[in-house]
């Protein structure tokens, strides 16, 4: 936990996940499951180190194991064999999930986190189609959308989230976002100075989704970690105007086409007398 130990509503809180020190122990996953009473994953034969698979309704922290073994042998491995990263909901400032939710179930809490109210969500899954980080899943029993809550209940009780508390290497740090950002910038500067030039921050500034309250220090390009880069961090609503204009243009053409096609041709066989005409139209034409 960062310097300020008092958790005060009205302040923005989040995670700084420093992947350079992650050892892949999954203590965060276990702590999260324990506190939030999420079921464990069945072991599957043939799984690699990563038997969690992805974030979803039951996995709110997921330690990614990304095979980064260089194709050619190059002296020492320099610890480059695996990229490990404890993934989590980013609690985006501009949250795609929140943007599309039709029920108002997704709210921003007094801790500036993005929270799905379980009693409001009706399981339409629009948020799942929107989240660019593959975070949200639908609980098969409850039918509602679930994801990391930034331990909303713990924060309300003045406790830091379970994952960051459990992380033995401080790869996950919890605190006020502004303090975390400062800390992260210092850390990346130190690493750069030590020659670790591949170290970079992701989501600490407004370049992705207006800033991520849960941001990362990465050891490679964001794409390697299945994170969209700044150019690809786009919101669903970008497609509203184009989509509706497409509908409008088609509607206009469709109506015009209809008017052309439905024009009564003056041909003998088409002149079918009819008694079914409503009286209303008797006076017209």
């Amino acid at each position, binding site marked *: 936990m960062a310097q300020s130990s008092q958790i005060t509503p009205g302040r923005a809180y989040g995670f700084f996940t420093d992947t350079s020190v992650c050892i892949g122990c999954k203590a965060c996953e276990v702590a999260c499951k324990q506190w939030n009473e999420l079921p464990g994953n069945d072991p599957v034969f043939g799984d690699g180190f990563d038997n969690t698979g*992805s974030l979803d309704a039951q996995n709110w922290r997921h330690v990614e194991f990304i095979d980064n073994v260089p194709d050619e042998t190059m002296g020492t491995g320099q610890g480059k064999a695996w990229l490990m990263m404890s993934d989590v909901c980013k609690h985006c400032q501009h949250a*795609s999930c929140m*943007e*599309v939710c*039709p*029920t*108002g*179930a997704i709210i921003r809490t007094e801790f500036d986190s993005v929270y799905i109210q379980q009693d*409001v*969500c*009706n*399981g*339409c*899954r*629009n948020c799942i*189609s929107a*989240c*660019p*980080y*593959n975070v*949200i899943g*639908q609980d098969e029993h*409850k*039918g*509602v959308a679930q994801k990391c809550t930034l331990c909303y209940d713990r924060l309300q009780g003045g406790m830091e989230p379970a994952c960051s508390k459990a992380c033995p290497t401080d790869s996950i740090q919890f605190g006020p976002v502004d303090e975390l950002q400062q800390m992260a910038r210092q850390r990346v500067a130190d690493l750069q100075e030590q020659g670790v030039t591949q170290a970079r921050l992701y989501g600490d500034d407004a370049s992705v989704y207006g800033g991520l309250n849960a941001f990362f220090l990465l050891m490679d390009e964001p*794409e390697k970690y*299945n994170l*969209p*880069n700044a150019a*690809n961090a786009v919101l*669903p609503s970008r*497609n*509203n105007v*184009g*989509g*509706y204009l*497409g*509908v409008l243009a*088609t*509607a206009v053409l*469709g109506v015009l*086409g*209809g*008017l*052309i096609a*439905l024009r*009564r*041709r003056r*041909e003998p*066989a*088409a002149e*079918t*007398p*009819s008694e*079914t*005409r*409503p009286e*209303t*139209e008797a006076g017209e*034409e």
Partner: protein
Amino acid sequence: MTILAEAQHFVRPPDWTWYILFYFFFAGLSGGSYTIATLFRLRGERSDEPAARLGYYAAFAALLPCPVMLILDLGRPLRFWHMMWNTTPDAAGFNFVYWSPMSVGVWALLLYGVFATVSFAEALVRDGKIRLPLAQGAVRLLDGTLGKLVIAAGAVVGLFIAGYTGVLLAVSNQPVWSDTWALGGLFLASGMSGSAALLMLLTRYRPEAQASAGMLAVSERLYALLELALIVVFVLTLIPAGTLGLTFGFPWILLWLVALAGLAPGIAGLLTSRLAVTGEGTTVAVHATSAATTLAVPALVLVGVLALRAAVIFSIQ
């Protein structure tokens, strides 16, 4: 681990499957039928009135499954009304999120339901199926300009219902869906061509409407052309995104082929007969034509409409 070169999509599909497929299908047919019926009323002559009424019957019938499909698709069907009413303790009130097509669509569907029901009831009264004096009096109000305004407004909402479903898919971060702006127009055009085919099919069972069947055939040709043009736009917009292979790869290409087969009669008709009802440019009474043209062709078009939506929905999930 493969790295996508172009548009990056690291998303989970929402599992919108069969219910949503059939919702999209029926929404397209309902909105399209309402619009065609309205065009008959506003543009056609007195002999087209039976076809117009047929359109309003079809629009109402196709609308009925829509809310059922939508509600059954929810993880918590009994909370469907949360779409309209926000139950958040401090923020209780109506939900209208204009930038979320799902939210807009719920209200539009409700509004369209009113128009479809009114026009359905009106058609029943005018057909003499309802003989209540009260209803007859109400329908008399719809004589003249008011009635025209009502059906014109209903057609606008109907066109929206037939098309917004494509925008709903696009307003996401899913590959293919969010890479194009053409889906809304594509669904609308295919809904219109499907509706023309559906009404052609139904004229078999409503002899008074058969006088209009030739015009329905001509409009189906034009809608098939419009749909084909939008498929081309759809393809062109996916090229820069690099997601073309995702939706047109095997086995989805088979569904696309069915969708194209559904366009074939319309396009072929346009090439051989243009806007004339027959190749010679004269009208033949439709009941004199073979069952192949009045049954098989519309059925093929409708299967194509379904296949198009299935290809778009299932290929990325």
